[in-house]
């Protein structure tokens, strides 16, 4: 299989991740934070180790502000619904994933307003377009860091400057950037960072997290057992307990711990260089084909490891099915749970085929994929 669907979930995982998950299942019996026997304490120590690694990766000063979630959608819902109340206003971009658009739409039915900063078809939001939408009651700016549809990278640092100057919280959806693009929450003035463990961080599914800066204090989405102050009916106010009710995915976090260790040892810069070379070859290869349209930022601008394209008059679903049939290529067609982004780039009627190489994708696989696309394009 030629796996070009890392934007959905990364595969393969680094060596050691499976071992780490298995080891946790074997060694770390029990529920960390609920008891003090050796097995549970081992699990607790592992969870803390992972928190500290993630904090180091994202430039977070206090690891206790890293709250584990089950994926980026979970983290985004925690942040959006925790930060906004009736009467508040939020701003997002026209490139957001449904995991931002849907919670905001749901909150709009309960008295929260939101505005959409329109991006041009290339997908990169202009900071001025965000600024124009600011209101006295704007409480939150939500920004996708890198588009899961066309790889466009938003000017998060500049938006962070704007938000911080106005006393507005910035929530960044790092679903496609965590582990692939350097993120420093202090330098970029990010107040809330939502990230999945299973994409660029190369961990198992069922993992993710939300960084919460000390400048904000979202309401919990759920209250429940935290293993702390059990005699109190009140959810703890301190982090991460405030946002971590219930049993964590300890085996998943064990795998995430190992994958982040691998990433930091290998170096994000090296991974970014490798993926950039793959994307550049993909873009030049696709651009040379008649009847193929590529979407997203123009050549020369940085892009996440995501390329969307269409073959003229061909259903993207059919194209993806054929690519798997003839060349064992795994990719994703359709609307990628991002209707706003497809509307922005003008593909709301058709969707697109999406290729998303990862750290373990080889150049030879890109050449095979290009050959397969060329063969299909000849039939268009």
């Amino acid at each position, binding site marked *: 299989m030629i796996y070009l669907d890392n934007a959905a979930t990364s595969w393969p995982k680094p060596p050691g991740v499976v071992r780490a998950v298995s080891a946790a299942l074997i060694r770390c019996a029990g529920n*960390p*934070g609920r*008891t*003090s026997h*050796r097995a549970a*304490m*081992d699990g*607790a*120590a*592992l*969870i*803390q*180790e992972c*928190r*500290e690694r993630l904090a180091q990766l994202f430039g977070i000063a*206090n*690891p*206790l502000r890293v709250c584990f979630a089950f994926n980026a959608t979970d983290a985004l819902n925690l942040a959006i619904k925790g930060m906004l109340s009736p009467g508040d206003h939020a701003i997002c971009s026209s490139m957001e994933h449904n995991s931002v658009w849907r919670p905001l739409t749901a909150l709009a039915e309960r008295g929260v307003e939101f505005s959409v900063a329109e991006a041009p078809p290339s997908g990169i939001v202009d900071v001025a377009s965000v600024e124009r939408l600011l209101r006295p009651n704007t409480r939150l700016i939500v920004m996708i860091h890198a588009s899961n549809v066309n790889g466009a990278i938003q000017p998060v640092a500049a938006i962070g400057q704007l938000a911080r100057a106005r006393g507005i919280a910035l929530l960044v959806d790092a679903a496609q950037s965590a582990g692939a693009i350097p993120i420093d929450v202090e330098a970029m003035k990010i107040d809330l960072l939502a990230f999945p463990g299973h994409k660029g961080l190369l961990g198992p599914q069922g993992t993710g997290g939300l960084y919460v800066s000390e400048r904000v204090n979202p309401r919990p989405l759920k209250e429940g057992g*935290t*293993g*702390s*102050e*059990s*005699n*109190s009916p009140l959810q*703890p106010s*301190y982090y*991460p*307990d405030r946002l*971590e009710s219930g049993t964590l995915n300890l085996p998943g976090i064990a795998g995430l711990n190992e994958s982040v*260790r691998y990433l930091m040892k290998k170096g994000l810069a090296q991974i970014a260089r490798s993926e950039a070379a793959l994307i550049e070859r993909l873009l030049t290869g696709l651009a040379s084909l008649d009847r193929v349209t590529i979407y997203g930022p123009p050549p020369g601008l940085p892009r996440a490891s995501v390329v969307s394209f269409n073959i003229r008059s061909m259903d993207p679903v059919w194209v993806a099915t054929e690519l798997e049939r003839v060349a064992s290529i795994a990719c994703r067609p359709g609307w990628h749970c991002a209707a706003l982004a497809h509307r922005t780039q003008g593909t709301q009627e058709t969707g697109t085929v999406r290729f998303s190489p990862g750290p373990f994708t080889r150049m030879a696989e890109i050449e095979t994929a290009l050959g397969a696309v060329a063969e299909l394009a000849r039939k268009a």
Partner: protein
Amino acid sequence: MARQLAVFASLNQVALLKRALYREGVYVEMVRTPRCYSSTGCSFALRCQTAELPLLDRICRQWKIEPGGIFEEPEKSETPPDLPFIEDE
């Protein structure tokens, strides 16, 4: 030598403090707080030597974590020690 139990509300706080102390060369035990020392129910504590308390205090201030209390433990304790689970950095 007298042992102290520094009680904290959250296991997460205790886990952070334990690792921070370990990086300073001090190994402490992480234990479930005995009921007699816990007014809120379900908390965790660090068992350390009296001489280690100033370092613990410094680290608590660094991380803005307040102990729920520090209690001198009787000489004999039936709680078995735990062992570190910290990978080489």
